[in-house]
């Protein structure tokens, strides 16, 4: 039987990898991919605890996370396309119009 802690270790390391990816990459597409990694790390935790605690609700949450991920991708990629039309680049540090 696999101990529950192994899953927690797996998912937290996956989360850290995703987080580091989000923070260090310049390519905006990869940043979004790393967000997906983080979401999946959370999902692994949900499913593992669902199995080990016999709570089906956690799997429902995975369902909702996937839904939100899908919505995020649709909007995020729409934004990327719009930004690319505007700036001809997909490097995130060149989108700094947030600074006034």
């Amino acid at each position, binding site marked *: 039987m696999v101990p529950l802690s192994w899953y*927690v270790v797996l998912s937290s390391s996956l989360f850290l990898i995703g987080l*580091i*990816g989000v923070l260090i990459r310049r390519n905006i597409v990869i940043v979004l991919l790393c967000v997906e990694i983080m979401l*999946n790390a959370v999902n692994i935790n949900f499913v593992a605890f669902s199995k080990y605690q016999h709570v089906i609700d956690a799997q429902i949450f995975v369902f909702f996370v996937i839904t939100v*991920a*899908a919505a995020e991708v649709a909007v995020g*990629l729409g934004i*990327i396309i719009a930004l690319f039309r505007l700036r001809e680049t997909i490097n995130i*540090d060149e989108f700094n119009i947030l600074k006034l």
Partner: protein
Amino acid sequence: MTMQMAMFGYFGAAIVISALFVVYFRNPIYSAMSLLTMFMHIAGLYVLLEAEFLAGVQLLVYAGAILVLYLFVVMLLNVQGRGRFLQKQTPAVFALGILAAIEVAALIFHTRFYPELPAIPHPGVPNLGNTETIGMVLYTQYLFPFEIASLVLLIALVGAIVLAKGKLKFR
């Protein structure tokens, strides 16, 4: 070292390595491919955790829809990133990463994980499969969040269309 542990070892290692490759590759297509690998292995992990339905959904939605969208965008834009490949703040991030890893390790080390709980027998309730159970709970207890989720998707759909249509004017 049981069979399950071996399976977990394989899936876990594959997941971590492919996730590292996602961050590591310069070419977004390669990153997307390693992410696809990761998704598939996570689906395998779900099967190991007896969540077959989620495994199917993981493949169908993440691999079949979300990632294909990424590929589409990457191929449509088809730009190679110019200049640097990492952000200027990378050293700070790695410092943070080390700190976070220590913290998480400490947390996990200090936590006492319960072994698997015994299943609670519900007299009179038939022992349903994973899919049926999810359906039961999703369409009764979580019906309202489910509807909200559909609304979220609708809004995202409309938003994506508006954004991608490209009639926006900045400044």
